[in-house]
């Protein structure tokens, strides 16, 4: 059986889920027997090619997140929302009951300690934030969800080995966590 091609990325996340992936420790070597990585912080490949599996950490908080998520959806047969932020928006989504207008004004213009005349950054290089943060399933079709903040290394290992073996992933007690 040829190796599955896997891409990973972090959108509005903290890379904690990627750190947790590394927490599978020496099982990484077993994993590399089964998969090869495409776009991922692990490979530093910048754009995703056709893949079997896409692993998304983080929610969607800005325009760039949308582009990356769409690139993954277009190229990955299976897309997995990994971690609390991808699943329900997580910590960044706790701004959702506030108006973006008020947030930007407070952070860049009216909070104490800002330089006189501070402005909201408007460099075209910077992605614009969305009015609200969204879990990824509110923007593209998502096939599987692996919750946790972060999901533990054991949970990730169980989930991935299930998927790779062609089983519908299931996490029993102790592996399924939202915290």
């Amino acid at each position, binding site marked *: 059986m040829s190796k599955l091609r896997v891409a990973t990325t972090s959108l509005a996340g903290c890379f904690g889920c990627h750190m947790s992936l590394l927490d599978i420790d020496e099982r990484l070597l077993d994993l590399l027997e089964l998969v090869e990585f495409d776009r991922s912080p692990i490979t530093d490949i910048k754009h995703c090619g056709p893949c079997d599996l896409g692993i998304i950490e983080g929610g969607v908080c800005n325009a760039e997140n949308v582009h990356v998520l769409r690139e993954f959806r277009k190229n990955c047969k299976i897309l997995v*929302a990994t971690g*609390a932020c991808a*699943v*329900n*928006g*997580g*910590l960044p*989504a*706790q701004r*959702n*009951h506030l108006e973006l207008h008020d947030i930007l004004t407070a952070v860049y213009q009216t909070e104490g300690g800002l330089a006189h005349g501070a402005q909201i950054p408007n460099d075209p290089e910077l992605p614009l934030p969305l009015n*609200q943060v*969204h*879990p990824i*399933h*509110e923007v593209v079709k*998502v096939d*599987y*969800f*692996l*919750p946790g*903040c972060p999901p533990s290394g054991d949970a990730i290992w169980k989930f991935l080995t299930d998927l790779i073996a062609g089983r519908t992933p*299931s*996490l029993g*007690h*102790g592996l*399924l*966590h*939202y*915290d």
Partner: protein
Amino acid sequence: MSEQNIFLLDGEEIAFAPGQTIMQAAQSAHKYIPHLCWHPEFKPHGSCKLCTVKINGRFGSSCTVEAAAGQNVENRTAELDDKRRTLLQLLFVEGNHFCPSCEKSGDCLLQATAYEMGMMTPHFDHFYPDRPVDASHPDVMLDFNRCILCSLCVQASELADKKNVFVMGGRGMRGRKIILNSESGKLGDTDFSVDDRAASICPVGVILKKRVGFVVPYGERTYDKAPVSAVEAAK
């Protein structure tokens, strides 16, 4: 107890005392029927609908339907657990349930029940409502972001504490909420006490005692140690 006072729960014979609901009889027999708004100390409320079972082929709330001889009750079937998962998803998107930053995580009945049902995602689009936090009381804070409208605090305050600090009011998803018994609407202006029964009844993370947070670390809490089905069946 007469020989006839027996019904079937997922094919197993369960004895009941006349007047017991299906839920009460199951609890006495150490069988778990999922529930959120039901609590053995209080009257059945019948609102969360997690305890929906099939009684002789018809849906019913096991917390309100009385046990009767010969009933065939389906409980943990794929069909019913699937409906329960959907109900849980509705509750998760209705409020703001961010477990990683919640003091109740691991001790939360909503979360534990969602684990039990294998809920991997809230599935629906989130409403992200704007709900208040009330820290006006010296000993207790309220975070209504997590309220699932189970009414247990209402019953505990009315029946156990004789106070009526909490009342369920308003209408519909956007209106229904806990109303506090003070003109200001603040907990600090009520006669609520940290020693009230209502202070420790909340199944989720709304009513939190101050200065005792995280005494037990994540990972070592009630439902970290055993799934809710096992915890409930052991009661």
